[in-house]
């Protein structure tokens, strides 16, 4: 158990509404990541964080924002959800020595 929890695990929302996904870790890791997974695309990096208040963009950051006000929590926000953001979202933390990622259970988001 890598000590990562995502919430909510499932959410259905309507186009135009704001959505926030939460990733919580108990391991005190510096790096945290948000990916989305879609058929045919594998996992694509949205944003990542390398410390409190330190974040950077990934491959598909448009339409998403993130915040990290404390080490244990990394929030992903869709300011105005669109149907193209229907996906499974995975949070991950990075091992300090090997740099491998350990993933949460995923959050399935459906935007109608």
């Amino acid at each position, binding site marked *: 158990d890598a000590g990562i929890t995502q919430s909510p695990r499932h959410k259905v929302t309507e186009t135009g509404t704001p959505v926030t996904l939460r990733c919580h870790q108990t391991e005190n890791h510096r*790096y945290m*990541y948000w*990916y989305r997974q879609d058929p*045919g*695309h*594998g*996992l*694509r*990096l949205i944003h*990542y964080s*390398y410390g409190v208040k330190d974040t*950077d963009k*990934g*491959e598909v950051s448009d339409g998403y924002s993130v915040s990290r006000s404390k080490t244990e929590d990394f929030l992903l926000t869709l300011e105005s959800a669109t149907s193209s953001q229907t996906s499974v979202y*995975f949070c991950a933390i*990075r091992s300090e020595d*090997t*740099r*491998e*990622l*350990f*993933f*949460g*259970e*995923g959050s399935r988001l459906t935007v109608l």
Partner: protein
Amino acid sequence: ELKVEQNPLFLSMQEGKNYTIYCNYSTTSDRLYWYRQDPGKSLESLFVLLSNGAVKQEGRLMASLDTKARLSTLHITAAVHDLSATYFCAVDEMVGGKLIFGQGTELSVKP
């Protein structure tokens, strides 16, 4: 910009056969990771390859890394049904913190 490509994307195998999945990447890196994902589940770390020539084996799976060729392989020996899953490689960008994934290889092992 780092690009990671896997092939094949789909692989249907018979039990007992051998096969190899390839992972190519576009920029210099000496850290590569293999993950397994079962349907509807999260990703599980399989192998961590941290240098040129690294080879790791676990059961019927063996992974290797050639940083000069920017290529990693995941070799499956005498496949069994339990190996059916999607396999991803991921490459560490080294500068910065990004880990970029390939598209995944969906493996189906049939009796």
